[in-house]
Protein backbone atom coordinates (compact mmCIF):
# COMPACT_ATOMS: atom_id res chain seq x y z
CA UNK A 1 0.00 0.00 0.00
CA UNK A 2 1.44 3.34 -1.00
CA UNK A 3 1.12 6.20 1.48
CA UNK A 4 0.58 9.73 0.21
CA UNK A 5 0.66 12.85 2.33
CA UNK A 6 -1.58 15.76 1.30
CA UNK A 7 -0.71 19.13 2.85
CA UNK A 8 -3.38 21.71 1.98
CA UNK A 9 -5.16 24.29 4.09
CA UNK A 10 -8.29 24.33 1.94
CA UNK A 11 -10.38 21.74 3.81
CA UNK A 12 -12.57 20.99 0.84
CA UNK A 13 -9.70 20.36 -1.53
CA UNK A 14 -7.83 18.36 1.05
CA UNK A 15 -10.81 16.11 1.71
CA UNK A 16 -11.72 15.57 -1.93
CA UNK A 17 -8.13 14.95 -2.99
CA UNK A 18 -7.67 12.34 -0.26
CA UNK A 19 -10.98 10.66 -1.18
CA UNK A 20 -9.98 10.54 -4.79
CA UNK A 21 -6.56 9.09 -4.02
CA UNK A 22 -8.09 6.50 -1.71
CA UNK A 23 -10.58 5.43 -4.33
CA UNK A 24 -7.60 4.98 -6.67
CA UNK A 25 -5.97 2.51 -4.34
CA UNK A 26 -3.63 4.69 -2.30
CA UNK A 27 -3.63 5.45 1.39
CA UNK A 28 -3.94 9.23 1.70
CA UNK A 29 -3.38 11.28 4.84
CA UNK A 30 -4.54 14.89 4.79
CA UNK A 31 -2.97 17.68 6.87
CA UNK A 32 -4.32 21.21 7.02
CA UNK A 33 -0.99 22.80 7.90
CA UNK A 34 2.73 22.12 7.71
CA UNK A 35 2.87 21.68 11.49
CA UNK A 36 0.36 18.86 11.23
CA UNK A 37 2.40 17.47 8.35
CA UNK A 38 5.59 17.40 10.41
CA UNK A 39 3.74 15.42 13.08
CA UNK A 40 2.39 12.99 10.52
CA UNK A 41 5.82 12.48 8.98
CA UNK A 42 7.42 11.86 12.36
CA UNK A 43 5.58 8.61 12.83
CA UNK A 44 4.91 7.48 9.29
CA UNK A 45 6.74 6.92 6.08
CA UNK A 46 5.26 8.43 2.95
CA UNK A 47 6.05 7.48 -0.63
CA UNK A 48 4.82 10.77 -2.05
CA UNK A 49 4.00 14.25 -0.77
CA UNK A 50 1.44 16.60 -2.31
CA UNK A 51 1.63 20.11 -0.94
CA UNK A 52 0.05 23.52 -1.40
CA UNK A 53 2.27 26.60 -1.44
CA UNK A 54 0.22 29.35 0.13
CA UNK A 55 -0.62 28.22 3.62
CA UNK A 56 -0.75 30.11 6.90
CA UNK A 57 2.35 29.59 9.01
CA UNK A 58 5.16 27.77 7.25
CA UNK A 59 4.52 27.89 3.50
CA UNK A 60 5.01 25.15 0.93
CA UNK A 61 8.45 26.37 -0.12
CA UNK A 62 9.82 26.19 3.40
CA UNK A 63 8.16 22.85 3.90
CA UNK A 64 9.72 21.40 0.74
CA UNK A 65 13.11 22.77 1.73
CA UNK A 66 12.96 21.17 5.15
CA UNK A 67 11.79 17.84 3.74
CA UNK A 68 14.60 17.80 1.21
CA UNK A 69 17.16 18.33 3.99
CA UNK A 70 16.36 14.91 5.41
CA UNK A 71 15.02 13.10 2.36
CA UNK A 72 16.41 13.76 -1.05
CA UNK A 73 14.32 11.30 -2.94
CA UNK A 74 10.70 11.37 -1.83
CA UNK A 75 8.66 12.79 -4.74
CA UNK A 76 7.05 16.14 -3.94
CA UNK A 77 4.23 17.57 -6.03
CA UNK A 78 3.13 21.17 -5.53
CA UNK A 79 -0.51 22.18 -5.96
CA UNK A 80 -0.87 25.91 -6.17
CA UNK A 81 -3.10 28.70 -7.39
CA UNK A 82 0.04 30.56 -8.47
CA UNK A 83 0.63 30.10 -12.17
CA UNK A 84 3.71 32.27 -12.51
CA UNK A 85 7.11 31.14 -13.67
CA UNK A 86 9.05 32.50 -10.65
CA UNK A 87 6.96 30.36 -8.27
CA UNK A 88 7.56 27.30 -10.42
CA UNK A 89 11.26 28.05 -10.69
CA UNK A 90 11.57 28.47 -6.94
CA UNK A 91 9.75 25.18 -6.39
CA UNK A 92 11.89 23.20 -8.78
CA UNK A 93 15.07 24.77 -7.46
CA UNK A 94 14.10 23.58 -3.99
CA UNK A 95 13.86 20.09 -5.40
CA UNK A 96 10.19 19.38 -6.02
CA UNK A 97 9.30 16.93 -8.74
CA UNK A 98 6.11 18.30 -10.24
CA UNK A 99 3.92 21.37 -10.12
CA UNK A 100 0.20 21.59 -10.79
CA UNK A 101 -1.86 24.74 -10.99
CA UNK A 102 -5.24 24.97 -9.29
CA UNK A 103 -8.02 24.22 -10.03
CA UNK A 104 -6.79 20.65 -10.02
CA UNK A 105 -8.13 18.06 -12.39
CA UNK A 106 -8.06 14.90 -10.29
CA UNK A 107 -7.61 12.60 -13.24
CA UNK A 108 -4.53 14.57 -14.20
CA UNK A 109 -3.31 14.48 -10.60
CA UNK A 110 -3.63 10.73 -10.65
CA UNK A 111 -1.62 10.39 -13.83
CA UNK A 112 1.16 12.52 -12.42
CA UNK A 113 1.18 10.75 -9.08
CA UNK A 114 1.52 7.40 -10.80
CA UNK A 115 4.29 8.66 -13.06
CA UNK A 116 6.19 10.12 -10.09
CA UNK A 117 5.90 6.91 -8.11
CA UNK A 118 7.05 4.82 -11.00
CA UNK A 119 10.07 7.04 -11.56
CA UNK A 120 10.93 7.06 -7.87
CA UNK A 121 10.83 3.30 -7.86
CA UNK A 122 13.04 2.98 -10.86
CA UNK A 123 15.47 5.51 -9.45
CA UNK A 124 15.61 3.82 -6.12
CA UNK A 125 16.35 0.44 -7.49
CA UNK A 126 18.35 1.66 -10.46
CA UNK A 127 16.94 -1.28 -12.37
CA UNK A 128 14.30 -1.53 -14.99
CA UNK A 129 12.46 -4.62 -16.16
CA UNK A 130 10.04 -4.68 -19.05
CA UNK A 131 9.06 -7.96 -20.64
CA UNK A 132 12.23 -9.97 -21.22
CA UNK A 133 14.52 -6.97 -20.85
CA UNK A 134 16.35 -6.01 -17.70
CA UNK A 135 18.48 -2.90 -17.55
CA UNK A 136 20.82 -2.17 -14.65
CA UNK A 137 21.87 1.46 -14.40
CA UNK A 138 24.76 0.83 -12.02
CA UNK A 139 26.29 -1.94 -14.04
CA UNK A 140 25.30 -0.35 -17.35
CA UNK A 141 24.09 -3.68 -18.64
CA UNK A 142 21.12 -4.67 -20.74
CA UNK A 143 19.99 -8.26 -20.60
CA UNK A 144 17.47 -9.64 -23.07
CA UNK A 145 16.03 -13.07 -22.29
CA UNK A 146 19.00 -13.88 -20.13
CA UNK A 147 21.64 -12.85 -22.64
CA UNK A 148 23.66 -9.68 -22.18
CA UNK A 149 23.64 -7.29 -25.12
CA UNK A 150 26.71 -5.13 -25.79
CA UNK A 151 25.70 -1.51 -25.51
CA UNK A 152 27.50 1.83 -25.44
CA UNK A 153 26.95 4.36 -22.69
CA UNK A 154 24.96 6.70 -24.84
CA UNK A 155 22.80 3.90 -26.23
CA UNK A 156 22.13 2.69 -22.71
CA UNK A 157 21.19 6.14 -21.48
CA UNK A 158 18.77 6.82 -24.30
CA UNK A 159 17.07 3.45 -23.91
CA UNK A 160 16.89 3.76 -20.13
CA UNK A 161 15.33 7.19 -20.40
CA UNK A 162 12.73 6.14 -22.93
CA UNK A 163 11.76 3.16 -20.82
CA UNK A 164 11.69 5.11 -17.55
CA UNK A 165 9.03 7.34 -19.04
CA UNK A 166 6.98 4.90 -21.05
CA UNK A 167 4.56 6.42 -23.52
CA UNK A 168 6.12 9.85 -23.14
CA UNK A 169 7.30 11.35 -26.39
CA UNK A 170 10.76 12.88 -26.51
CA UNK A 171 11.75 15.21 -29.32
CA UNK A 172 15.12 14.77 -31.02
CA UNK A 173 16.30 18.02 -29.48
CA UNK A 174 15.44 16.79 -26.00
CA UNK A 175 17.36 13.55 -26.44
CA UNK A 176 20.29 15.36 -27.96
CA UNK A 177 20.38 17.94 -25.17
CA UNK A 178 20.46 15.26 -22.55
CA UNK A 179 22.83 12.72 -23.98
CA UNK A 180 25.17 14.54 -26.28
CA UNK A 181 27.66 17.07 -24.92
CA UNK A 182 26.64 20.70 -24.58
CA UNK A 183 29.02 21.90 -27.25
CA UNK A 184 27.99 19.40 -29.86
CA UNK A 185 27.34 20.66 -33.33
CA UNK A 186 25.81 17.41 -34.42
CA UNK A 187 22.68 17.58 -36.50
CA UNK A 188 19.52 16.31 -34.86
CA UNK A 189 19.61 13.51 -37.41
CA UNK A 190 22.28 11.86 -35.28
CA UNK A 191 19.49 10.88 -32.90
CA UNK A 192 17.74 9.03 -35.71
CA UNK A 193 20.89 7.01 -36.32
CA UNK A 194 21.02 5.96 -32.69
CA UNK A 195 17.38 5.00 -32.60
CA UNK A 196 17.87 2.78 -35.64
CA UNK A 197 20.77 1.12 -33.85
CA UNK A 198 18.67 0.69 -30.72
CA UNK A 199 15.78 -0.81 -32.63
CA UNK A 200 18.18 -3.27 -34.10
CA UNK A 201 19.85 -4.19 -30.81
CA UNK A 202 16.60 -4.49 -28.92
CA UNK A 203 14.65 -6.23 -31.63
CA UNK A 204 14.48 -9.29 -29.42
CA UNK A 205 12.46 -7.52 -26.77
CA UNK A 206 8.85 -8.46 -26.43
CA UNK A 207 7.70 -5.97 -23.82
CA UNK A 208 7.86 -2.72 -25.77
CA UNK A 209 8.37 -1.00 -29.09
CA UNK A 210 10.14 2.22 -29.98
CA UNK A 211 7.68 4.27 -31.95
CA UNK A 212 8.44 7.28 -34.17
CA UNK A 213 5.94 10.02 -33.42
CA UNK A 214 4.95 12.13 -36.44
CA UNK A 215 8.52 12.08 -37.66
CA UNK A 216 9.37 14.46 -34.82
CA UNK A 217 10.16 12.37 -31.79
CA UNK A 218 10.33 8.95 -30.22
CA UNK A 219 8.61 7.11 -27.44
CA UNK A 220 8.72 3.65 -25.90
CA UNK A 221 5.31 2.02 -26.04
CA UNK A 222 4.72 -0.81 -23.63
Amino acid at each position, binding site marked *: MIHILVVEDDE*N*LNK*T*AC*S*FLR*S*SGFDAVGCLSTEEAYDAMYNNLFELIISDIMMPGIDGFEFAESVRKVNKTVPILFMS*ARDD*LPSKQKGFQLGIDDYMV*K*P*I*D*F*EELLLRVRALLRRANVEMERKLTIGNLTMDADAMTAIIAGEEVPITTREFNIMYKLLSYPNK*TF*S*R*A*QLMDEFWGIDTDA*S*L*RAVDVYVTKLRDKFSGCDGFKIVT*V*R*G*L*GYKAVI
Partner: protein
Amino acid sequence: MNQKDKIRQSHLPVRYFGITFLVMLLVAGVHAGLILLLTMLELWSGVTAAIIIIYWIMMAALFVLITNKQMVKYYETPMKELAKATNAVAKGDFSVYMPPIHTADKLDYLDVMIMDFNKMVEELGSIETLKTDFFSNVSHEIKTPLAVISNYAQLLLRQDNLTEEEKDYVKNILSASKKLTELITNILKINKLEKQNINPEIVRFDVNEQICNCIFQFEEKLTQKEIELTAELDERLFIEADASLLELVWNNLLSNAVKFTDQGGTIDIKEEISEDTVTIMISDSGCGMSEETMQHVFDKFYQGDTSHAMEGNGLGMALVFRILQMFGGEISVKSELSCGTTFSIVLPKYYDYIKRKKS
Protein backbone atom coordinates in the same frame (compact mmCIF):
# COMPACT_ATOMS: atom_id res chain seq x y z
CA MET B 1 -17.21 79.15 -14.37
CA ASN B 2 -14.02 80.71 -13.14
CA GLN B 3 -11.76 79.28 -15.79
CA LYS B 4 -13.91 80.37 -18.68
CA ASP B 5 -14.00 83.91 -17.32
CA LYS B 6 -10.26 84.09 -17.37
CA ILE B 7 -9.95 82.90 -20.92
CA ARG B 8 -8.48 85.46 -23.15
CA GLN B 9 -10.80 86.72 -25.85
CA SER B 10 -8.42 86.39 -28.74
CA HIS B 11 -10.20 88.30 -31.45
CA LEU B 12 -8.59 91.72 -31.03
CA PRO B 13 -6.02 91.45 -28.28
CA VAL B 14 -4.97 94.94 -27.32
CA ARG B 15 -1.30 94.19 -26.86
CA TYR B 16 -0.92 92.69 -30.29
CA PHE B 17 -2.83 95.53 -31.87
CA GLY B 18 -0.49 98.04 -30.29
CA ILE B 19 2.65 96.19 -31.35
CA THR B 20 1.41 95.68 -34.93
CA PHE B 21 0.47 99.38 -35.25
CA LEU B 22 3.89 100.50 -34.07
CA VAL B 23 5.70 98.04 -36.34
CA MET B 24 3.68 99.18 -39.34
CA LEU B 25 4.44 102.80 -38.54
CA LEU B 26 8.10 101.94 -38.36
CA VAL B 27 8.11 100.07 -41.66
CA ALA B 28 6.19 102.84 -43.39
CA GLY B 29 8.46 105.42 -41.83
CA VAL B 30 11.56 103.70 -43.12
CA HIS B 31 9.95 103.48 -46.54
CA ALA B 32 9.27 107.21 -46.53
CA GLY B 33 12.80 107.91 -45.34
CA LEU B 34 14.23 105.71 -48.08
CA ILE B 35 12.28 107.61 -50.76
CA LEU B 36 13.57 110.92 -49.39
CA LEU B 37 17.14 109.67 -49.29
CA LEU B 38 17.01 108.27 -52.79
CA THR B 39 15.48 111.50 -54.16
CA MET B 40 18.21 113.52 -52.47
CA LEU B 41 20.87 111.31 -53.97
CA GLU B 42 19.27 111.98 -57.41
CA LEU B 43 19.58 108.38 -58.42
CA TRP B 44 18.20 106.98 -61.57
CA SER B 45 14.44 106.23 -61.20
CA GLY B 46 15.04 102.63 -62.19
CA VAL B 47 17.51 102.10 -59.36
CA THR B 48 15.23 103.89 -56.93
CA ALA B 49 12.33 101.66 -57.91
CA ALA B 50 14.53 98.58 -57.57
CA ILE B 51 15.71 99.59 -54.08
CA ILE B 52 12.16 100.27 -52.93
CA ILE B 53 10.99 96.95 -54.28
CA ILE B 54 13.87 95.09 -52.62
CA TYR B 55 13.05 96.83 -49.37
CA TRP B 56 9.43 95.74 -49.52
CA ILE B 57 10.41 92.20 -50.47
CA MET B 58 12.63 92.08 -47.38
CA MET B 59 9.85 93.46 -45.20
CA ALA B 60 7.36 90.95 -46.59
CA ALA B 61 9.79 88.11 -45.96
CA LEU B 62 10.46 89.32 -42.42
CA PHE B 63 6.72 89.61 -41.78
CA VAL B 64 6.09 86.07 -42.99
CA LEU B 65 8.97 84.66 -40.96
CA ILE B 66 7.79 86.34 -37.80
CA THR B 67 4.13 85.34 -38.17
CA ASN B 68 5.13 81.80 -39.02
CA LYS B 69 7.28 81.62 -35.93
CA GLN B 70 4.36 82.85 -33.84
CA MET B 71 2.05 80.29 -35.39
CA VAL B 72 4.47 77.48 -34.70
CA LYS B 73 5.01 78.63 -31.16
CA TYR B 74 1.40 79.15 -30.24
CA TYR B 75 -0.41 76.59 -32.30
CA GLU B 76 1.65 74.10 -34.24
CA THR B 77 3.95 73.03 -31.41
CA PRO B 78 1.24 72.55 -28.79
CA MET B 79 -0.92 70.79 -31.38
CA LYS B 80 1.88 68.41 -32.23
CA GLU B 81 2.41 67.79 -28.52
CA LEU B 82 -1.27 67.08 -28.09
CA ALA B 83 -1.22 64.79 -31.12
CA LYS B 84 1.69 62.85 -29.59
CA ALA B 85 -0.08 62.60 -26.25
CA THR B 86 -3.33 61.47 -27.86
CA ASN B 87 -1.46 58.85 -29.80
CA ALA B 88 0.12 57.49 -26.61
CA VAL B 89 -3.26 57.26 -24.92
CA ALA B 90 -4.75 55.55 -27.95
CA LYS B 91 -2.03 52.93 -27.63
CA GLY B 92 -3.11 52.27 -24.06
CA ASP B 93 -0.86 54.49 -21.95
CA PHE B 94 -3.16 56.13 -19.45
CA SER B 95 -0.43 57.88 -17.48
CA VAL B 96 -0.05 60.63 -20.08
CA TYR B 97 -0.35 64.21 -18.77
CA MET B 98 0.08 67.42 -20.74
CA PRO B 99 0.86 70.62 -18.87
CA PRO B 100 -1.15 73.68 -19.99
CA ILE B 101 0.73 76.15 -22.18
CA HIS B 102 0.02 79.29 -20.22
CA THR B 103 -0.06 80.06 -16.53
CA ALA B 104 -3.33 79.70 -14.65
CA ASP B 105 -4.41 83.31 -15.08
CA LYS B 106 -3.78 83.54 -18.79
CA LEU B 107 -5.47 80.42 -20.13
CA ASP B 108 -6.86 80.33 -23.63
CA TYR B 109 -9.06 77.84 -25.45
CA LEU B 110 -6.16 75.58 -26.25
CA ASP B 111 -5.32 75.29 -22.56
CA VAL B 112 -8.91 74.42 -21.70
CA MET B 113 -8.80 71.68 -24.32
CA ILE B 114 -5.57 70.33 -22.85
CA MET B 115 -6.99 70.29 -19.35
CA ASP B 116 -10.10 68.47 -20.53
CA PHE B 117 -7.84 66.02 -22.31
CA ASN B 118 -5.96 65.32 -19.08
CA LYS B 119 -9.26 64.72 -17.30
CA MET B 120 -10.35 62.23 -19.95
CA VAL B 121 -7.08 60.30 -19.70
CA GLU B 122 -7.38 60.12 -15.93
CA GLU B 123 -10.90 58.78 -16.22
CA LEU B 124 -9.81 56.15 -18.73
CA GLY B 125 -6.95 55.17 -16.47
CA SER B 126 -9.15 54.63 -13.48
CA ILE B 127 -11.59 52.51 -15.48
CA GLU B 128 -8.67 50.40 -16.65
CA THR B 129 -7.44 49.90 -13.09
CA LEU B 130 -10.94 48.95 -12.04
CA LYS B 131 -11.07 46.37 -14.80
CA THR B 132 -7.75 44.74 -13.96
CA ASP B 133 -8.38 44.73 -10.23
CA PHE B 134 -11.79 43.24 -10.87
CA PHE B 135 -10.29 40.47 -12.92
CA SER B 136 -7.50 39.47 -10.62
CA ASN B 137 -9.70 39.48 -7.53
CA VAL B 138 -12.86 38.04 -9.00
CA SER B 139 -11.13 35.35 -10.99
CA HIS B 140 -9.80 33.71 -7.85
CA GLU B 141 -13.25 33.88 -6.28
CA ILE B 142 -14.72 32.29 -9.39
CA LYS B 143 -12.06 29.63 -9.80
CA THR B 144 -12.43 28.27 -6.28
CA PRO B 145 -16.07 27.17 -6.40
CA LEU B 146 -15.50 25.97 -9.98
CA ALA B 147 -12.75 23.74 -8.66
CA VAL B 148 -15.14 22.41 -6.04
CA ILE B 149 -17.75 21.59 -8.68
CA SER B 150 -15.30 19.77 -10.91
CA ASN B 151 -13.58 17.93 -8.05
CA TYR B 152 -16.80 16.60 -6.57
CA ALA B 153 -18.03 15.65 -10.02
CA GLN B 154 -14.84 13.65 -10.54
CA LEU B 155 -15.34 11.98 -7.18
CA LEU B 156 -18.92 11.14 -8.07
CA LEU B 157 -17.79 9.47 -11.27
CA ARG B 158 -15.66 7.17 -9.15
CA GLN B 159 -18.68 5.74 -7.35
CA ASP B 160 -19.68 2.37 -8.66
CA ASN B 161 -23.36 2.48 -7.86
CA LEU B 162 -24.31 5.00 -10.54
CA THR B 163 -26.51 4.10 -13.47
CA GLU B 164 -25.26 4.85 -16.98
CA GLU B 165 -27.64 7.76 -17.16
CA GLU B 166 -26.41 9.18 -13.86
CA LYS B 167 -22.83 8.85 -15.01
CA ASP B 168 -23.78 10.78 -18.12
CA TYR B 169 -25.26 13.58 -16.00
CA VAL B 170 -22.09 13.87 -13.96
CA LYS B 171 -19.95 13.88 -17.08
CA ASN B 172 -21.96 16.81 -18.36
CA ILE B 173 -21.43 18.73 -15.12
CA LEU B 174 -17.74 18.03 -15.39
CA SER B 175 -17.37 19.15 -18.98
CA ALA B 176 -19.36 22.34 -18.40
CA SER B 177 -17.24 23.27 -15.41
CA LYS B 178 -14.10 22.54 -17.40
CA LYS B 179 -15.29 24.90 -20.12
CA LEU B 180 -15.91 27.61 -17.55
CA THR B 181 -12.50 27.19 -16.04
CA GLU B 182 -10.92 27.46 -19.47
CA LEU B 183 -12.91 30.58 -20.22
CA ILE B 184 -11.84 32.26 -16.98
CA THR B 185 -8.23 31.27 -17.56
CA ASN B 186 -8.31 32.68 -21.08
CA ILE B 187 -9.96 35.92 -19.99
CA LEU B 188 -7.33 36.28 -17.30
CA LYS B 189 -4.52 35.64 -19.72
CA ILE B 190 -5.76 38.06 -22.32
CA ASN B 191 -6.41 40.63 -19.64
CA LYS B 192 -2.89 40.31 -18.29
CA LEU B 193 -1.51 40.82 -21.75
CA GLU B 194 -3.54 43.94 -22.32
CA LYS B 195 -2.02 45.61 -19.30
CA GLN B 196 0.74 47.59 -20.88
CA ASN B 197 3.22 47.02 -18.11
CA ILE B 198 3.60 43.32 -18.75
CA ASN B 199 7.23 42.77 -19.54
CA PRO B 200 7.78 39.74 -21.69
CA GLU B 201 10.45 37.42 -20.31
CA ILE B 202 12.74 37.16 -23.27
CA VAL B 203 14.85 34.04 -23.47
CA ARG B 204 16.75 32.33 -26.23
CA PHE B 205 15.22 28.99 -27.02
CA ASP B 206 14.64 26.45 -29.74
CA VAL B 207 11.23 27.25 -31.19
CA ASN B 208 11.20 24.08 -33.29
CA GLU B 209 11.52 21.98 -30.17
CA GLN B 210 8.75 23.98 -28.58
CA ILE B 211 6.41 23.32 -31.49
CA CYS B 212 7.34 19.62 -31.43
CA ASN B 213 6.42 19.39 -27.78
CA CYS B 214 3.10 21.10 -28.42
CA ILE B 215 2.37 18.65 -31.22
CA PHE B 216 3.08 15.71 -28.88
CA GLN B 217 0.42 17.02 -26.55
CA PHE B 218 -2.16 16.62 -29.28
CA GLU B 219 -1.05 13.09 -30.11
CA GLU B 220 -4.14 11.43 -28.71
CA LYS B 221 -6.55 13.64 -30.61
CA LEU B 222 -4.53 13.32 -33.80
CA THR B 223 -4.60 9.54 -33.62
CA GLN B 224 -8.26 9.50 -32.71
CA LYS B 225 -9.17 11.60 -35.74
CA GLU B 226 -6.62 9.81 -37.92
CA ILE B 227 -5.11 13.12 -38.91
CA GLU B 228 -1.78 12.99 -40.65
CA LEU B 229 0.54 15.67 -39.39
CA THR B 230 3.73 16.48 -41.26
CA ALA B 231 6.16 19.06 -40.01
CA GLU B 232 9.45 20.30 -41.38
CA LEU B 233 10.96 20.92 -37.99
CA ASP B 234 14.04 18.82 -38.36
CA GLU B 235 16.71 21.12 -37.11
CA ARG B 236 17.09 23.48 -34.21
CA LEU B 237 15.90 27.04 -34.62
CA PHE B 238 16.85 29.48 -31.91
CA ILE B 239 14.97 32.71 -31.44
CA GLU B 240 14.66 35.30 -28.70
CA ALA B 241 11.15 35.62 -27.37
CA ASP B 242 8.93 34.91 -24.39
CA ALA B 243 8.71 31.14 -24.44
CA SER B 244 5.63 30.68 -22.27
CA LEU B 245 3.59 33.19 -24.28
CA LEU B 246 4.66 31.69 -27.59
CA GLU B 247 3.67 28.27 -26.30
CA LEU B 248 0.13 29.59 -25.94
CA VAL B 249 0.23 30.65 -29.59
CA TRP B 250 1.16 27.17 -30.84
CA ASN B 251 -1.31 25.47 -28.54
CA ASN B 252 -4.15 27.65 -29.74
CA LEU B 253 -3.31 27.32 -33.43
CA LEU B 254 -2.80 23.56 -33.21
CA SER B 255 -5.96 23.15 -31.18
CA ASN B 256 -7.92 24.97 -33.87
CA ALA B 257 -6.28 23.00 -36.65
CA VAL B 258 -7.18 19.73 -34.95
CA LYS B 259 -10.68 20.92 -34.08
CA PHE B 260 -11.63 22.04 -37.54
CA THR B 261 -10.04 19.22 -39.52
CA ASP B 262 -12.22 16.25 -40.19
CA GLN B 263 -11.45 12.58 -39.78
CA GLY B 264 -8.57 11.52 -41.97
CA GLY B 265 -7.47 15.07 -42.77
CA THR B 266 -3.99 16.54 -42.82
CA ILE B 267 -2.09 19.22 -40.98
CA ASP B 268 1.11 20.57 -42.43
CA ILE B 269 3.71 22.80 -40.79
CA LYS B 270 6.33 24.58 -42.85
CA GLU B 271 9.00 27.14 -42.08
CA GLU B 272 10.80 29.85 -43.96
CA ILE B 273 13.84 31.44 -42.45
CA SER B 274 15.13 34.85 -43.46
CA GLU B 275 17.86 37.04 -41.99
CA ASP B 276 15.75 38.74 -39.36
CA THR B 277 12.58 36.74 -39.21
CA VAL B 278 11.09 33.28 -39.18
CA THR B 279 7.81 32.48 -40.90
CA ILE B 280 5.87 29.47 -39.71
CA MET B 281 2.87 28.26 -41.67
CA ILE B 282 0.31 25.92 -40.21
CA SER B 283 -2.07 24.52 -42.80
CA ASP B 284 -4.94 22.19 -42.34
CA SER B 285 -7.30 20.46 -44.73
CA GLY B 286 -10.29 21.36 -42.64
CA CYS B 287 -13.55 23.10 -43.29
CA GLY B 288 -11.99 26.47 -44.00
CA MET B 289 -13.38 29.95 -43.37
CA SER B 290 -15.54 32.37 -45.29
CA GLU B 291 -14.35 35.90 -46.16
CA GLU B 292 -16.39 37.29 -43.31
CA THR B 293 -15.00 34.85 -40.79
CA MET B 294 -11.45 35.61 -41.89
CA GLN B 295 -12.00 39.27 -41.22
CA HIS B 296 -13.23 38.67 -37.69
CA VAL B 297 -11.21 35.66 -36.70
CA PHE B 298 -8.96 37.63 -34.36
CA ASP B 299 -11.80 39.41 -32.58
CA LYS B 300 -12.52 38.58 -28.99
CA PHE B 301 -15.30 36.07 -28.44
CA TYR B 302 -15.79 35.55 -32.16
CA GLN B 303 -16.53 32.02 -33.22
CA GLY B 304 -17.03 31.68 -36.93
CA ASP B 305 -18.20 28.10 -37.07
CA THR B 306 -20.94 27.70 -34.53
CA SER B 307 -21.07 23.94 -34.99
CA HIS B 308 -17.86 23.75 -32.97
CA ALA B 309 -18.95 26.41 -30.53
CA MET B 310 -19.20 23.95 -27.68
CA GLU B 311 -15.52 23.20 -27.91
CA GLY B 312 -14.13 26.68 -27.60
CA ASN B 313 -14.73 30.14 -26.24
CA GLY B 314 -13.72 32.50 -29.03
CA LEU B 315 -10.78 33.98 -27.13
CA GLY B 316 -7.99 31.79 -28.44
CA MET B 317 -7.24 33.72 -31.62
CA ALA B 318 -7.61 37.09 -29.91
CA LEU B 319 -5.01 35.92 -27.41
CA VAL B 320 -2.70 34.75 -30.20
CA PHE B 321 -3.05 38.05 -31.99
CA ARG B 322 -2.28 40.06 -28.87
CA ILE B 323 0.77 37.97 -28.01
CA LEU B 324 2.23 38.30 -31.50
CA GLN B 325 1.56 42.01 -31.45
CA MET B 326 3.70 42.26 -28.33
CA PHE B 327 6.63 40.66 -30.07
CA GLY B 328 6.48 42.69 -33.22
CA GLY B 329 5.29 39.50 -34.90
CA GLU B 330 2.47 39.16 -37.38
CA ILE B 331 -0.21 36.65 -38.14
CA SER B 332 -2.23 36.34 -41.29
CA VAL B 333 -4.71 33.81 -42.54
CA LYS B 334 -5.63 32.38 -45.91
CA SER B 335 -8.59 30.13 -46.20
CA GLU B 336 -11.05 28.56 -48.56
CA LEU B 337 -14.31 27.02 -47.49
CA SER B 338 -14.22 23.20 -47.54
CA CYS B 339 -10.57 23.25 -48.63
CA GLY B 340 -8.59 24.29 -45.64
CA THR B 341 -6.89 27.11 -43.80
CA THR B 342 -3.33 28.33 -43.52
CA PHE B 343 -2.14 30.54 -40.70
CA SER B 344 1.16 32.29 -41.33
CA ILE B 345 3.06 33.58 -38.35
CA VAL B 346 6.05 35.85 -38.76
CA LEU B 347 8.37 36.04 -35.78
CA PRO B 348 11.43 38.21 -35.34
CA LYS B 349 14.50 36.16 -34.53
CA TYR B 350 16.08 38.66 -32.23
CA TYR B 351 14.46 40.89 -29.68
CA ASP B 352 16.37 43.98 -30.67
CA TYR B 353 14.82 43.67 -34.10
CA ILE B 354 11.52 44.55 -32.49
CA LYS B 355 13.02 47.52 -30.72
CA ARG B 356 14.57 48.69 -33.95
CA LYS B 357 11.29 48.25 -35.79
CA LYS B 358 9.41 50.25 -33.18
CA SER B 359 11.83 53.14 -33.45
